[in-house]
């Protein structure tokens, strides 16, 4: 079986982009096998098919895996794997309603973003405020500017991610 690996990095809020990527790959004859390590996507050659890929972020579901996967399976979704808190599902478009997703209203999409926020964003904000920001201030006081640049860069990077995440959340909230 011919296989292929790609490296792709999707930040925490780019799950829609990731879903589209996996769908596009399947459509061009590369079936998603798994994602592992630091964004290494494994594919195997297949007959091109339109398959819908969906990501859910649900800690409670991962803890009650059997019941969680069973519900998706009953609704025609194949469970693939978990990866950094996200669970991966797919369903051939031929068996799905047009534009079918695993969420049927904006409220539940917002709730998923809230779960991502609590599970992934909030811990980082706490880490940044308790360690990185005090270190940054200390480095300015001690005039160790290399460290200032280092911590400053990390803080800027995460701040960008938070802002992008917040924008996505408010966009969805406004649509509601």
């Amino acid at each position, binding site marked *: 079986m011919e296989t292929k690996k790609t490296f792709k990095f999707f930040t925490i809020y780019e799950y829609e982009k990731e879903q589209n990527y996996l769908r596009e790959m399947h459509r061009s004859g590369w079936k998603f096998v798994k994602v592992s390590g630091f964004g290494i996507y494994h594919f195997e050659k297949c007959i091109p098919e339109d398959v819908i890929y*969906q990501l*859910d972020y*649900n800690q*409670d*579901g991962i803890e*009650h895996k*059997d*019941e*969680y996967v*069973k*519900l*998706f399976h*009953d*609704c025609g*979704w194949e469970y693939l794997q978990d990866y950094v808190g996200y669970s991966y599902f797919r369903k051939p478009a031929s068996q799905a*309603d047009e534009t*079918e*997703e*695993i*969420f*049927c*209203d904006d*409220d*539940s999409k917002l*709730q*998923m973003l809230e779960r991502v926020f609590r599970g992934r964003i909030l811990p980082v904000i706490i880490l940044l405020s308790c360690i990185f920001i005090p270190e940054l201030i200390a480095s300015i006081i001690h005039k160790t500017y290399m460290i200032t640049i280092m911590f400053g860069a990390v803080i800027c990077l995460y701040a960008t991610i938070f802002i992008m995440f917040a924008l996505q959340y408010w966009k969805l909230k406004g649509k509601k």
Partner: protein
Amino acid sequence: MNQHVKKVYVPMTETAFYILLCLKKPNHGYGIVQTVDKITDGAVRLTPGTMYGSLSKMEKDGLIRFIREEDKRKIYQITDLGSEVLQIELKRIERLYRNAREEI
């Protein structure tokens, strides 16, 4: 009824409404999906991500309770608080309907 429940469920989403309505009798997530599909002639199609999230949330908020598990499917039923919230919502919808029918 506490403020949180009032804020989140009055008014409630169509999904929440149908879940509570179906759980007057014990049922599991997929059973609710099938029932709602039938009683709305396919107009309301509930999906598993929404269903799983809603059931967990409603259980946490005390609107429904877990009864037992059958073949890896969790069976729930509405609680007194859930019935109370559903009644409030029904009254609200009846009022909407009545007002829409009457000449203003």
